[in-house]
């Protein structure tokens, strides 16, 4: 295992130019996903994120076969699936998660069929599924930087509308907000965040960038603003620590990042200042009983 100092030296080594690029990509993806993930976690739409992540796959496959832009292909497929889910969910006979279950497996299956027609498909399949953070072209770095900035701007501009819909759909609708369009906008943003991050971490693990840091942030604070700040910070930290461990121990980058992020989540679960396992245990003993625990809420939020 190499030291942190050696890692920094490697980052600055011009022969290892792919390494700082990998760190940059992982951090940018984590920041974008960490912010958008807060909405995903609070609205309980993790399954939609999963669906979109899988649905992106046929788009990537088509782009690969046609030698086109992976980002564009993935975005088209993901957005198409997100729109299909949103529209089909208007039929109240089937629940939304059922609709998602139908479409995302279908999209993934389509991806497998398409990519099987391409030559040398086993290797590229692995790239899609697990990411290839070390072989990223420069133009993709620019795409992620620009796309990520636009996404963050969009989330910022629609923030209070998203919150109003998450809080109370009926009220939002009666106040005259276009709820369906706002849903679509959020789905599309989730899709784009996933597409931008797929190359870093792969199709299967990308959900972790979206969900885990935001979930950890939720454990640590009761304030939405703080949560949306902590999410990207935690995500970016996990990305850097994960890449360091991956580089020094020769572990797969995506998997290591996700495991570091998960470790952070477990740590927060136990040690969170207000709702952590440890605090509850201590408080429970002091206050003698679960009823009293609710009352000992400290007014100052995180």
């Amino acid at each position, binding site marked *: 295992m190499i030291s942190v100092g050696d890692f920094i030296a490697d980052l600055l080594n011009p022969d290892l130019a792919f390494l700082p690029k990998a760190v940059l990509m992982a951090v940018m993806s984590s920041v974008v996903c960490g912010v958008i993930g807060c909405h995903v976690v*609070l609205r309980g739409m993790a399954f939609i994120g999963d669906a979109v992540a899988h649905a992106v796959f046929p788009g990537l496959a088509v782009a690969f076969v046609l030698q086109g832009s992976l980002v564009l292909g993935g975005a088209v497929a993901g957005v198409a699936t997100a729109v299909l889910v949103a529209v089909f969910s208007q039929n109240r006979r089937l629940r939304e998660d059922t609709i998602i279950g139908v479409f995302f497996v279908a999209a993934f299956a389509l991806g497998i069929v398409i990519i099987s027609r391409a030559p040398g498909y086993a290797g590229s399949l692995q790239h899609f599924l697990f990411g290839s953070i070390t072989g990223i072209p420069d133009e993709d770095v620019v795409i992620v930087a620009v796309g990520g900035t636009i996404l963050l701007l969009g989330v910022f*501009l629609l923030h*209070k*509308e998203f*919150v*109003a819909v*998450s*809080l*109370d*759909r*009926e*009220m*939002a*609708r*009666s*106040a*005259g*907000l276009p709820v369906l369009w706002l849903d679509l906008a959020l789905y599309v943003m989730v899709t784009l965040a996933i597409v931008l991050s797929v190359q870093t971490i792969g199709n299967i693990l990308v959900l972790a960038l979206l969900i885990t840091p935001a979930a950890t942030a*939720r454990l640590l*604070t*009761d*304030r*939405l603003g703080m*949560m949306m700040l902590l999410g990207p910070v935690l995500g970016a930290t996990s990305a850097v620590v994960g890449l360091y461990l991956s580089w020094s121990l020769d572990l797969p980058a995506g998997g290591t990042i996700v495991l570091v992020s998960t470790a952070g989540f477990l740590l927060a679960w136990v040690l969170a200042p207000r709702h952590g396992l440890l605090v509850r245990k201590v408080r429970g003993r002091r206050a003698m009983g679960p009823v009293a625990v*609710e009352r000992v*809420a400290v*007014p100052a*939020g995180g």
Partner: protein
Amino acid sequence: MTAVGTRVPVTREPGPPALQVTDLAVELGGRLVLHDTDLAVRAGELVGLIGPNGAGKTTLLRSVLGLVPTRSGTVQVDGRSGGAASSRIGYVPQRHEFAWDFPISVEDAVMSGRVRRVGWMRRPAVADYRAVRQALDRVRMTDLRRRVVGELSGGQRQRVLVARALALQPSVLLLDEPFTGLDVPTQELLTDLLVELCAEGGALLMTTHDLTGAMHTCSRLCLLNRTIVANGPPEELTDPDLWMRAFGITGGSPLLRALGLVQATA
């Protein structure tokens, strides 16, 4: 403030009603849920909308809000219809409609009611903060304004929802079963608040299943079963026949005895 009685006096003055529903018919899934429904609520009135499950109470509220398409009829607020009408309505939904686990403070939750007023891509202005502050004052939640909504009791949550509706400074307040799930002292606090809002010139329409409470509190009751079966001050609705028709019950029902409409047979 405490000198207000628990009963809202009957308003008999003429003048245009704050809320006017005329000849409303609503079809849901090919079934006529409401027909020939006329309803008016004036400023200073607390009108109780009463009827069995499936009578169309919630549908009536939702059509007033413009959430369900109507087959015929008009809804007017302060003499206006369409979007101008719905922006003058404050809606207090049932408590379970709100995501109480959301990490948001009381004052921000109340501000979320004004999201359309604030406008797209804009931040709340001084007028918005002032409206939120006044709404919180009126429901006496100012002290708890920084509290996270998830830590509130049932009664406090109901008051947050009322404040969120009041933050729009509406002419009409619609409340969907505000008393359901509250204990008696909390119900009484809420009743006092509603009575106060009426005394300040609000027009309130609420659905409720608490019939005896409604008899006691409301200035007027509307018995609904697909259409308005009866409409008047509680003391005028003494004909057991009306209640039997509205609720589809027989003369022996304990409900009629509970309401004091028939004497218990010895």
